[in-house]
């Protein structure tokens, strides 16, 4: 196995307890991503896309197998180590934005930096730069409840890129957006990928998303049925 892979999955299986038995959501997944990829998981509903992203993002634990980020197996990470990994190396973009409701746009974007104990002045530069990337500098003082869905998703993008993570996991980022906003978002993400070299991993049904992907991995019933680089 190559060691300069950013993400490596080795025989990963995820089973959920269901009633008395178990449901296998992912079985024997082998995958690797190198730095700078712009890849996506596609497949029908229930095929395991979200589950796979959650495992890579250390939001959930695999039942079997190894998941390596930067060569380090995260399977047996402590709560603290997982939290640190998410804070420093992984950015998330969710379908429903998940902004913190009581903070302003600025504070939402600033939040990951505060956790990293970055000094205030540096934070300001970084936050404004991130907001600049997504074109939202002028609404920095609004609250999430005062902005549109498309804007909210751009704020979420700013929040995920502000700390310059190596990986951004985006679970159906355009599902709640109209096509104009969806394209806008994908343009932004593509730019970030190209200019900052951030690795993107999507999950999507959306053809507008799929059009942008440079690598498409198809899942069905928890198995990889196709993995193609465009």
């Amino acid at each position, binding site marked *: 196995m190559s060691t300069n892979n950013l993400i490596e999955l080795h025989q990963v299986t995820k089973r959920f307890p269901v009633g008395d038995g178990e449901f296998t959501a992912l079985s024997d997944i082998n995958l690797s991503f190198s730095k700078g990829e712009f890849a996506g998981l596609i497949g029908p509903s229930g095929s395991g896309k979200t589950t796979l992203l959650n495992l890579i993002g250390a939001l959930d634990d695999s039942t079997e197998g190894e998941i390596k980020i930067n060569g380090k197996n995260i399977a047996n990470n402590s709560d603290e180590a997982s*939290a640190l990994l998410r804070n420093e190396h992984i950015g998330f973009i*969710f379908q429903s934005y998940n902004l913190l*409701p009581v903070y302003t746009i600025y504070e939402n974007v600033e939040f990951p930096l505060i956790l990293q104990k970055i000094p205030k002045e540096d934070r300001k530069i970084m936050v404004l730069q991130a907001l600049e990337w997504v074109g939202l500098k002028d609404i920095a003082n609004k609250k999430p409840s005062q902005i549109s869905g498309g804007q909210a998703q751009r704020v979420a993008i700013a929040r995920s890129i502000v700390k310059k993570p190596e990986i951004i996991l985006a679970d159906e980022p355009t599902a709640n957006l109209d096509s104009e906003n969806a394209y806008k978002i994908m343009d932004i993400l593509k730019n970030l990928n190209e200019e900052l070299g951030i690795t993107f991993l999507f999950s999507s049904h959306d053809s507008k998303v799929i059009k942008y992907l440079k690598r498409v991995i198809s899942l069905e019933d928890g198995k990889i049925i196709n993995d193609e680089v465009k």
Partner: protein
Amino acid sequence: MIQDLLLNFKLAYKNIISAGLRTWLTITTLAFAFLLILFFNSLYTGWEYQGVKDQIDWEFADGQIIYKEFDKNDPFTIESGHHQMIKNENIAPVLIRQGNLYPQGRMLPIAIKGIPANQSIVKLPTHLFHESKEEFPVIIGEAMATNNHLKKGDKILLRWKDKNGTFDAKQITIVGIFHTNVPTIDMGQIWMDIDLLWKMTGLEKEASYHIVKGNYNHELKSQWRFESQQDLLKDFISMVEMKKGSSAFLYIILMFIALIAIFDSQVFSVFKRQKEIGTYIALGFTKKRVTLLLTIEGAMYAILATIIGSLISIPLISWLGVEGVTLSSKEQSQQMGITIGEKLYPMLTSKLLFSSIFWIILLSTIVSYLPVRKIAKMNTVDALKGKK
């Protein structure tokens, strides 16, 4: 670590403040409970302080040497409750006899108390005995005077028994009315020069008890027992402490309501804010830290309530400490022989302040923690999706 904690406090503050009216209702209730705690306890502390001081100044001095057959709570022990006095320049003898006054044709059973005219151990204005030209000068307290419509200069018939049990009677003259908060040296009694009382009764150099100034460290004969200031004040202090306890009822109920409100909002948080909790975790919080954050949120109610409560109650109670508070039960207390002033002056001690703050914050923190413990068992992925 400190930085993390500070951040948690900031976030917690933001979160509860943005919750609006409900937050302020809870904080107000808690702050009000806090204010009542401080007010009532300060009031009783002030009373206790004043009462102790008054009783020392007027009655107990630095202790009393009491004839063992005499019990101040039992009038039947007065008759034979006396003995040859102890001679010492730092103690003053007091002899108590029973008698009847006949003001305006009524009969008023009273205690006649004799005390040396030249004593300066207690505040009783006994110097008036010598300054007066009257044959039988007595002084009485203000409550005794008011209750029985007596005034300075009144001449009243007094009947008493001498040591042989023979009745005798003389006109006494009220030469002074003193003001005291201590009803046990005021109500139902008259004070006269002990020399005079000795002569009237033939109980030369006899005393029921002595008032002590300073440290009395001479050996006592077995007929006498020494009661220290503390012994003498014990009943009063425990009575005030009991009153303190009974006033707790009001603020305990308020505290209870506030704690339930906090508990309730914490249950609500864990239930309704799952998506937010999941987001914190996705952004790099551990579950422990989210639990801590939400616990601090709950504790924040108490922190804000004690800050606001302090800002109101410290100046308020300090002001009342100067102005005084009139208690409606004052008359009743006096009739029961309890020392109480016209006004009570609340005394807010730092011990009371800080221990109340400590307890309120501790209780709120515990109540806040109980519902949010659940976060540890929460599934992050489910939480992120929000409430299903």
